[in-house]
C-alpha cells in the first residue's frame, strides 16, 4: 500500500474530461479513450500534483459524507491508475 502522504501527479500525456454523450468522465490519449466510473472520475479530478492521498480521501469524504471505507477504494484505484500510467509519483 502507498504512503498516505505521497502526492500523485496527473500524467500530462492524458486529458481528463467530462463527456456528456457518455455521461461520465473519460481519459483521452492518442487515438484512445477510457471511461471512468463515478468514483474513479471524482478521484482523478483531485489528482493535481498538490493533494496527497490523505487529502484526496479527506476531500472525497467531505463531498460524499456517507462514503465509509472510501479510503480503501481510493488506495485501490490509485494503484491501478499508477500501473496504467494515468498518474505518477515523484521519486
Amino acid at each position, binding site marked *: 500500500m502507498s504512503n498516505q502522504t505521497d502526492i500523485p501527479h496527473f500524467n500530462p500525456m492524458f486529458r481528463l474530461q467530462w463527456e456528456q*454523450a457518455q455521461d461520465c468522465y473519460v481519459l*483521452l490519449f492518442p487515438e484512445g479513450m477510457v471511461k471512468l466510473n463515478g468514483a474513479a472520475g471524482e478521484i482523478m479530478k483531485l489528482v493535481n500534483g498538490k493533494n496527497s492521498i490523505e487529502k484526496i480521501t479527506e476531500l472525497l469524504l467531505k463531498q460524499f459524507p456517507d462514503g465509509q471505507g472510501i479510503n480503501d477504494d481510493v488506495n485501490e484505484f490509485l494503484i491501478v491508475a499508477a500501473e496504467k500510467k494515468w498518474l505518477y509519483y515523484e521519486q
Partner: protein
Amino acid sequence: MNSDNDKKLGPPLWLLAELTYDCPLHCPYCSNPTDLGDFSDELTTEQWCKVLTEARAMGAVQLGFSGGEPLLRKDLDQLVKHGRDLGFYTNLITSGIGLTEKRIAKLKQAGLDHIQISFQGADPEINDAIAGRGKAFEQKFKMAKSVKAQGYPMVLNFVLSKQNIDQIEAVMELSCQLKADYVELATAQYYGWAYTNRDHLLPSQEQLVEAERQVNQFRDRQQGKGPQFIFVTPDYYETRPKACMNGWASTFLTIAPDGSALPCHSAKMLPLKFPNVKDKSVNDIWLQDFSFNRFRGDSWMPQPCQSCDEKEKDFGGCRCQAFMMTGDMDKTDPVCSKSPDHHLITKAIAQALNPQGKIVQRVNQRKIVEADIARIKL
C-alpha cells in the same frame, strides 16, 4: 433497416478527417485510392468546421487529421483550433514532411493534443527508398525529436513490409531513442496502392514469426519502461478476420477530402453510393443513410457467417477485402478459414514468395512510376 439495428447505435466516436489526398511522399503501401481524382473538389474550411461541429454534437470525441499529408492544408491550424475548442482530442497523423519546429509550436498553441509520425524504415537508406523521397528520414527524425521536446505525446508508426521487417530490432531501438510513447509496428494493410503491390510487400510467414519473436524479446527487456509497442500482423496469416472497424459504421466515420462520408477509409471502392457532407448533415448520414445501414447488424450476412457463433466477434470481417478478392462485398472475408474463398488467401501468400512484375510507387498525378525499392537487394 435491419432488425438487429434496434440495439442502441452509439455516436461515431472516432472522426477521421482526410484533409487532402495530396502528399509529398510516394509510399507503395499507401492505402489511399489509386484513382486519386483531382484536388479541386476538396472541402473548404467552413465545410470542415461544420462537419466537426456536427460530429461533436453527436458525441464524437477523437478527431484525426490525416490524408495524404494534412500539413499541406493551409488551414490546418484553424481546423485544429476549432476541433479542440469543441472538446475533441485532436490527433495529427503525418509523414513529418512539411513540419518545422515553428509549425509544431503553432499547432500546440492551436490546441493540438498529439502527433503521429510515420516512418518507412529504421535508417535513411531504406526509409527514403520506400518513401520515394531523399532526406525524408532525416526530416522525420528531427521532427520527432522536436515533437517530444515540445511536450506532445507521440506515436510512431512503422509500416512493415518484406523490405524492412528484418530491421525490426533497429526500429525498436530508434523508437526508444526518439522517446516515443506508443509505437505501431504495423504490416501494411492491403488496400489501395498496397493491394496493387501486395506480392512485393507481404512478408513471409518466417519473417513474421521471427519479427514477433524479436518484439517479444525486446518487450521483456523493457521492464515496463519506454515506448509501448503494438505489433500488428497482416490478417492473411490468420484463420479469422479482423473485426473490421469495430463493426461497420459502429464507431468510425471517415470524411474523404471531397466530403464523401465513409464507414472506413477504403470503403469508397465498394459498389455503394456514399453520401456527402456537402448535401447532408453528419447526423442524417450516420443515423439514416442506406450505405451506413447496409452492413450494420447481421441480417445481411451470408453463410457460413449467418449461422456462425463467432459473428459477434468479427462481424464477418472486412467488406472491402471480400469485395477486392471475390468481387462480392456481401461475402465472408476470405481470411476466415471457414470461407469458401479462403484459397484466394493461400494463393496470395504463395504468389508473394515469388512476385512477378514491378512494384509501383504511389503518384500524386495520374502517371505511375516504377519504384526504387524494387532495386533494394533483399
